[in-house]
């Protein structure tokens, strides 16, 4: 075998890799919170009786779910400056990830809401609860519990998809790997390590999310 493996050549680049991992975690954390919040709002709007609102959100969901993430990202980063909206690479990355996760989680959460038995909503109404109260106290909790595993998978996909943000020079883990590879020309070692780091991040993310899910929507998760 002509190739001699040399993982020690990566040691010089430890700070770059650490920065990359931290940036990936930061991007994922911010976009998860904002994206799921957007998804809850979107699902509420899509299932609401206000038709125009449901149509607008439906259009947003279809637009984002039927176009590639890379194109959405390039549009935000390279395209919007033409309209005078110039976002830094991390802002563009977060915005793209939030918009993307928002659309997918809207659909996922809507599915959970649709699965709520009519009787529960009627029970809420008969207790004199208002529409928003029913949504908040009767519908949302069990709905989130039902779809939490699906939402977890979507969040992991978004975390892994953040690697695409290296294309606009957001210095996350994939950027760090590409950067190191263009300096030490050791693709096997670099991408092997990056793969291991992504795997560890994904496993850790699933674990954290199942903890959160178990706390917040105990009933639904135990059933899932």
């Amino acid at each position: 075998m002509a190739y001699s493996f040399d993982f020690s050549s990566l040691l010089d680049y430890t700070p770059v890799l650490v920065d990359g991992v931290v940036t990936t975690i930061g991007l994922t954390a911010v976009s998860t919170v904002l994206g799921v919040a957007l998804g809850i709002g979107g699902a509420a709007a899509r299932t609401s009786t206000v038709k125009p609102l449901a149509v607008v959100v439906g259009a947003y969901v279809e637009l984002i779910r039927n176009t590639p993430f890379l194109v959405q990202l390039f549009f935000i980063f390279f395209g919007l400056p033409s309209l005078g909206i110039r976002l830094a690479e991390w802002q563009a990355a977060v915005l793209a990830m939030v918009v993307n996760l928002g659309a997918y989680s809207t659909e996922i959460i809507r599915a959970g809401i649709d699965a709520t038995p009519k009787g529960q909503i009627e029970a809420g109404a008969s207790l004199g609860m208002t529409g928003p109260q029913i949504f908040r106290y009767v519908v949302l909790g069990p709905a989130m519990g039902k779809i939490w595993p699906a939402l977890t998978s979507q969040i992991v996909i978004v975390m892994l998809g953040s690697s695409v943000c290296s294309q606009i020079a957001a210095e996350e883990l994939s950027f760090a790997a590409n950067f190191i590879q263009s300096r030490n020309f050791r693709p096997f070692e670099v991408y092997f390590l990056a793969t291991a780091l992504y795997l560890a991040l994904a496993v850790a993310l699933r674990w954290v999310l199942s903890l959160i899910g178990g706390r917040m929507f105990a009933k639904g998760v135990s059933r899932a």
Partner: protein
Amino acid sequence: MRFAKILGALGLATAVLAGGLAPTHAKADALERIAKEKVLRVAVPQDFPPFGSVGTDLKPVGYDIDAATLIAKEMGAKVELVPVTSTNRIPYLTTGKVDLVISSLGKNAEREKVIDFSTAYAPFYNGVFGPDDIKAEKPEDLDGKTVGVTRGSVEDIELSKIVSDKVTVRRYEDNNGTISAFLSGQVQLVATGNVVAAAIFERNPPRLPIMKFLIKNSPCYVGLNKNEGPLMEKVNAIIAKAKDDGSLNAIAKKWLHAPLPKDL
């Protein structure tokens, strides 16, 4: 007597063999041949704009073609353009298929063992480029600014060595990413080759990339066969004259959208 005859025959044979085997380096007669036939054969690129590419009429156009035409005109000869690639341009010269190589050829020690080089006729460099309103004459002036560069390129490696931590270097996947980042204002300056800067100029953007300072310089030279002293003198004289009278500067402005650097 007999012995002397054999010895003489052997000597003759050796001389003939040696003569035949000796590298057929043309004697200094290329210039004579050009003057006699009134044809200058030049190897030019056809896949490397703006130095040489195929125009809409399928004829080669570019900086190198204009330079070849200029040199031929000064010699009173007709130019015969021979399209070459970057790998076969030197073999075309050493096997005598062309008289000159004008094909964005850079100088290095290995090539100098095989062929000779004229004085530089075209600028080829990496530098930092940016719009007029940004002042930056040296690496320190970049502090606090954002510079775009193509990741892993020569200019990325060199720039990373000379700038401080106060400079935000944004590294893009390829030249198109770097160009887009500059055109959309995501970076204030770019570190890139003068050829890429010329490509940005071609699009006539609102923010024009003006040369700020040099990172690495490797200008282009005309390649000639070894032992072509008179031709070399003639080519150098023509280049010097073209630099003086501004005709080479006009070619640079036309194809590279920037005047010739003073030190070329």
